[in-house]
């Protein structure tokens, strides 16, 4: 009996969280709790692509084919989420490990340019970039070569974009390559 109830509750919870985009192929999360992940969500919407978006996504929630991690540290955002930098990095490590284990493709994005660099953001970049299968970096974000250095060994492809709206083009291309057609 207990297990039936558990399943029922689990389904309810899943439906609540997923809503209309229950069957999405893409999971979208933040690394550092800046609003940049929300901007990528808007770009995805414009491309007509559904994504399950949760800035605090946990490994257990990962059932999609693609994981997009939008990197950008915000102390206000971390504060709003009630977590600190180390808890955020621990969550990301677990999530990235789960993604690798489930053969989920990982796309890391940095869309904040130079303004979203600095001590805090750089820690998240260091935690996420090496695990990525592909990267999209907006101009200024890789001016000092941080992404290039972190992905040297894996030779991860880094796609550039002039600004946040401009990530639509590389995003579309990458998603198409990974089997998700966009508008």
């Amino acid at each position: 009996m207990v297990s039936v109830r558990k399943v029922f509750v689990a389904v309810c919870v899943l439906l609540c969280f997923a809503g209309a985009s229950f069957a999405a192929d893409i999971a979208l999360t933040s690394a550092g709790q800046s609003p940049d992940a929300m901007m990528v969500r808007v770009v995805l919407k414009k491309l007509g692509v559904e994504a399950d978006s949760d800035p605090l996504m946990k490994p257990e929630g990962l059932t999609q084919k693609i994981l997009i991690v939008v990197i950008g540290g915000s102390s206000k955002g971390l504060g709003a989420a009630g977590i600190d930098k180390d808890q955020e990095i621990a969550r990301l490590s677990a999530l990235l490990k789960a993604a690798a284990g489930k053969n989920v493709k990982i796309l890391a994005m940095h869309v904040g340019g130079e303004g979203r660099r600095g001590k805090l953001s750089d820690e998240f970049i260091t935690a996420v970039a090496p695990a990525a299968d592909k990267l999209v970096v907006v101009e200024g974000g890789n001016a000092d070569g941080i992404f290039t250095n972190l992905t040297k060994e894996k030779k991860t492809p880094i796609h550039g974009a002039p600004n946040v709206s401009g990530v639509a083009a590389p995003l579309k291309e990458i998603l198409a390559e990974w089997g998700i057609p966009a508008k």
Partner: protein
Amino acid sequence: MMRQPAASWKTAILLLLLSLFVAFVAARDFRVMNAPDVFAPAEGFARKMLSEYFPPLKGTTADTPVFIREGKEPGGTVLILGGTHPVESAGILAATLFLENASVPRGRLIVIPNANAMALTHNSPQEGHPQRIHFALKDGSTRVFRYGSRATNFTDEWPFPEIYVHPASGQKLSGKERSNLNRCYPGVPDGSMTERLAFAIVELIRKEKVDLAFDLHEASPEYPVVNAIVAHERSMELAAIVTMELEGLGIPIRLEPSPKNLRGLSHREWGDSTDVLPILMETGNPSQGRLRGRTDERLVLTGEDKAYVKAAALGRLFIPYEGNQLIAYRVARHVTAIRVFVENLEMVRPGKGVTLEGIPQYEEILKQGVEAFLKPVPKKREV
């Protein structure tokens, strides 16, 4: 030898008269700050008072004009608040530009240009702040705006508590923050004057069912949240759309979430106590900074300061600074951001869109200056 008293007597009277004269001049100068700024609303704006939303405010120094423009076609409601901190002139001027230029075919626009009228009745002479700023209009007339203080006048908030305990949360701040409108939300109906004012503004948002509300500010260039939007989580998707669109227009702006644990601020409390989408915006104003040199009306209007050039070269600023921060640029940023927000409101609140017309474009404000979009007002007083 014995005639000395007569001379002292005369000197004493003279000094007494002189000090009376100085007191008279100073008092006159102080009192004249009580004369309200005059606005020239565009056609169709109805003038109300904030006390109509919270009657105990009536007849107090906290009461302030509220201008409402109702469109023919039904839609949502947008509120623009300038002058939460009257040292942040770009906020007052951006609100004024909407008030004096907007026509509203759809939905409603509410403008409160002087949100904290009690902070406009004094200024900070020891900071070198000017009492007013002036704009020369094409017809030869001059528009004058008071340059007040960040805080409510002492005469309205005396005495300060040692520590300001925010009533809704128990958050403790320095006592003087009780005079800061943007720490007093959601307000207290029988609280201090500033808390009552905050309460009245939240009442207005509730009673007018405001969909999208702006609180316009400026901050020093060395403050991290500048050239920025701060959004409540409910406003975040709209703010993300706007941030991207502004970037496309060549107006880079930083988007920050409203911290859940920083209480009393508009971007937090408006959203927590009503259904509104709250947005706070900041531009960069060197006359508010700590690094500034000579402080006068010129600095407020141009933002030109040698020390900021040095600070920028050292990478200490959070805005690109190339020698100035013109008032036209600061106002243009606010006006354009509001315009883009309003244009996208329908997307996040279907059926609640608002159409604004007659709002000057970014480039127009930069090229022609703020004064080109201010209307002449009847000459009320010589200042």
